[in-house]
């Protein structure tokens, strides 16, 4: 007796296999496209993977919670990868030497600007609290930002989506903005990009200059730690 297609489908969609396969395959496709596009920041593999998976589960009629149930194995590793960020941060700390005052000042100024400007513009244009909350975290690297989002009760999903969008915007716009303000030294350009656009900005910076990349990575790590320490404390007073 031949099992019919429907039966096979019911069997497969009941295991985590389908969700895991979809997630990894979509991300792999994203990476291939990114490489083909000469690593242009607009061809971001995460954005491609998210759009692909979202389209696939909508077409197949899989509700999101069911997909997430299967994909949670991937999601779990996010915490482990966050701990692992200690390695690139530790390696980058040597770059702080002799420049600690300007770097720390720029970090605080950049972090404050990121939150104040995003929240002010969104409020002015009438966005509600569920949108504004995740904007507090969009310049913090996504794995850390999503962890903080859970603590301050804003959506980790929107935090991730805003963070990835911010990373892409920062990577695409950085050159013009940095030229406009007359920033010349590679370490300064890299650090500014890392403060604003975390991981995606960092890989962009590395593709332009190793020195810029090192400082962008340092900025991303420090901004992540600073954000995790301060945003949960400040958020209750700033959200209104």
């Amino acid at each position, binding site marked *: 007796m031949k099992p019919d297609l429907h039966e096979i489908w019911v069997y497969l969609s009941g295991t985590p296999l389908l969700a895991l396969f979809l997630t990894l395959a979509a991300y792999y496709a994203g990476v291939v496209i990114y490489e083909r596009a000469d690593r242009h920041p607009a061809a971001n593999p995460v954005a491609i993977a*998210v759009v692909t998976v979202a389209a696939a589960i909508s077409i197949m009629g899989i509700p999101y919670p069911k997909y997430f149930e299967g994909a949670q194995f991937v999601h779990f590793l996010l915490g482990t990868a966050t701990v692992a960020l200690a390695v690139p941060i530790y390696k980058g700390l040597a770059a702080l030497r002799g420049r600690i005052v300007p770097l720390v000042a720029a970090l605080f100024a950049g972090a404050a600007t990121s939150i104040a400007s995003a929240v002010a513009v969104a409020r002015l244009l009438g966005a509600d609290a569920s949108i504004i909350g995740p904007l507090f975290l969009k310049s913090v690297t996504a794995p850390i930002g999503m962890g903080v989002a859970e603590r301050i009760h804003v*959506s980790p999903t929107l935090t991730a989506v805003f963070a990835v969008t911010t990373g892409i915007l920062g990577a695409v716009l950085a050159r013009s903005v940095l030229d406009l303000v007359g920033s010349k030294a590679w370490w300064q350009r890299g650090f500014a990009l890392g403060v604003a656009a975390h991981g995606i900005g960092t890989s962009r910076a590395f593709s332009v200059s190793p020195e810029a990349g090192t400082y962008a990575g340092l900025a991303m790590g420090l901004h992540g730690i600073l954000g995790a320490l301060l945003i949960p404390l400040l958020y209750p007073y700033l959200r209104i």
Partner: protein
Amino acid sequence: MIAGLVRILFFQGLGELVSHFLLTLIPGPVVGLVLLLGWFSVRNGIAQDVDTVATALVQNLGLLFVPAAVGVVMFWPQLRAHAMAVAAALVVSAVLTIAVSALVLKILSKRQAQNET
């Protein structure tokens, strides 16, 4: 490689415990990150197997937030209603954050250089 993974998971667990009982506002993995940084400075270096595992994880970080980000399908109506506000906030904020950070660095490092000479 397994030795490295065990150590990283150990620090993640330690971070979760500290976060749960002492620092409830800070996510466990971030506490684990800071503890691991402390461990590196005590040891004055990074063990090879920890380096190998951490590098593999960090290089594929993007993959790990795909499952959560796909949840955006549940926010479509809200995002569409506030599309202008979200787009404007993200663009303005990205531009200003880069500009302000770069300007602070430029001004302060110039001043520092002047003080040293």
